[in-house]
């Protein structure tokens, strides 16, 4: 540590350039990770907010909520405990209000007596009580919608009234409008013999009575959201490649720095200073550089997150970013292990000309 700190102190320019390189790399990785996570959450936050284990969908739906319909007969055959099961009806809608922007949204109809209705977490207002009342995602508020506003769906003539706002209610990157299931058939334009899109249950092994229906886990439902898996794979690969490339870049820099120090290390070896001491100093120096680079990068990313407009989805997940940082620290220690090999093979004779 002694040599590491003294050297950084003496070679300020060189080491601040290296730290700023690490700052930029970690900043890029942090921002990209947060954007990827933000986008992922725009796909799933509504589903994640529903506290359920399994979802019962029509088998013909290809595990897509918006393709699934349950008939009255199918629902009658389902065992429904209002504390554990809840019917939901999904409809894709366009929300309009005079003088305001149209919003493409997902309507989710729920039943008042079932758990999902009771567990909706409002950020303001109150739950809908009639079939022409709704609570909407808080992004509606960003577009100027207020509690008490009249809102029209699709080309229907009867207005709905906004009674409250829900936070983080997004499904497939569209805001969610929660209403009562009784409003659903009209919005979905289905014949009255269909009564819901799906049933969610808190029961892990809910038995499905009909071979026309299938039971799927929450994760299966999320993985089958249109575009979701492809998007995640793309981001994961981007971040993984970025990490690998940064590993190589950082490792090369640390390698060059150490190579430049070898003649000097040879002198210290002549004086009887052990390999262990020199290696410890080299690794410590890498750690100092990387950790301070990461800290500044994280700070910059935090400032960016505060400054960035709400419409850009960005989500800071501290455990995930911690993991990313740990990855960078490990990669840089690995990077500094390459020159360690060289230190072990330093020939003290080189010091004596």
């Amino acid at each position, binding site marked *: 540590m*002694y*040599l590491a700190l*003294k*050297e950084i*102190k*003496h*070679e300020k320019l060189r080491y601040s350039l290296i730290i700023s390189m690490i700052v930029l790399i970690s900043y890029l990785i942090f921002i990209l990770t947060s954007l990827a996570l933000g986008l992922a959450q725009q796909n799933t936050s509504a589903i994640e907010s529903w506290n359920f284990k399994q979802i019962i969908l029509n088998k013909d739906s290809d595990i897509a909520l918006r393709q699934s319909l349950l008939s009255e007969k199918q629902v009658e055959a389902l065992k429904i405990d209002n504390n554990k099961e809840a019917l939901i009806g999904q409809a894709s809608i366009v929300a309009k209000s005079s003088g305001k922007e149209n919003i493409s949204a997902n309507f989710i109809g729920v039943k008042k007596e079932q758990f999902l209705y009771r567990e909706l977490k409002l950020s303001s207002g109150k739950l809908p009580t009639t079939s022409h009342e709704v609570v909407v995602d808080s992004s509606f508020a960003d577009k100027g919608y207020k509690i008490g506003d009249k809102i029209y769906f699709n080309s229907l003539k009867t207005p709905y009234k906004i009674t409250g706002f829900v936070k983080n209610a997004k499904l497939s990157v569209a805001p969610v409008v929660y209403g009562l299931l009784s409003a659903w058939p009209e919005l979905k334009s289905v014949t009255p013999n269909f009564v819901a899109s799906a049933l969610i249950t808190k029961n892990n092994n809910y038995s499905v009575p009909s071979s026309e229906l299938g039971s799927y886990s929450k994760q299966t439902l999320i993985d089958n959201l249109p575009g979701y898996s492809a998007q995640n794979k793309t981001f994961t690969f981007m971040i993984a490649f970025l990490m690998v490339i940064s590993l190589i870049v950082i490792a090369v820099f640390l390698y060059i720095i150490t190579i430049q120090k070898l*003649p*000097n290390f040879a*002198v*210290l*070896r*002549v*004086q*009887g*200073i*052990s*390999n262990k*001491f020199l290696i410890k100093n080299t690794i410590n120096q890498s750690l100092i550089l990387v950790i301070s680079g990461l800290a500044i990068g994280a700070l910059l990313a935090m400032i960016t997150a505060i400054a960035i407009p709400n419409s850009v989805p960005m989500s800071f997940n501290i455990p995930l970013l911690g993991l990313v940082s740990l990855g960078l620290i490990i990669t840089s220690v690995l990077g500094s292990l390459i020159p360690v090999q060289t230190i072990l093979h330093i020939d*003290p*004779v080189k*010091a*004596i*000309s």
Partner: protein
Amino acid sequence: MAVIEFKKVNKHFGTGSARVHVLKDIDFSANAGEFVLILGPSGSGKSTFLTIAGNILSPTNGQVFINGKDISTYSTKERESLRLTDLGFVLQSHNLVPYLTVKEQFELADKVKKSGNLTPDNLTGLLEQLEISELIKKYPEQLSGGQSQRVAIARALYTDPQIVLADEPTAALDSKRVKVVGEILHHLAKSQNKAVIAVTHDLRLVEQADKIYELNDGKLTLKN
């Protein structure tokens, strides 16, 4: 008693037609309290001799004893600790860590050898003797060749080694300073009972030496 002894030491470099015989059947010994000078022209094998004495290179054949122990049997770790505690090197060049001030060069020695180093008072005395007390806050790049050589001498003596090995310790010094360094090495041998071995082509050190060897074409001969 001889603190360091060479018995029929030979050193070859390279193989095949490129093989050179640098040291030839060297017999040598130095006692505690002796200042030994080895004179020789450039390329005669002085540095090679010192590297073998300093336990950095092994001889091709022959034996080297330090304090009566054959060091060819030592492990890397034992060699390291021997260099750290019993040997002090004054190298021909690049002796100092470039990013440490003069004062910090001694601090570094304290980090790796926790005890048995000079006391602050003794260090101050040594620095004054070498006329480098004013330089302690400077970095090596700010020192002249002669100044850094004197710092290197102080650095080598700081760990209070039993054997001091110096490679051209006076190369960059003027006559007045050569005399000072010669006196310091001589005084060191006498007052602290150390074995001081210096290799050089500088005849100006001859006056202070107790024993003078000549190294010529790999052969060592005693002159006085």
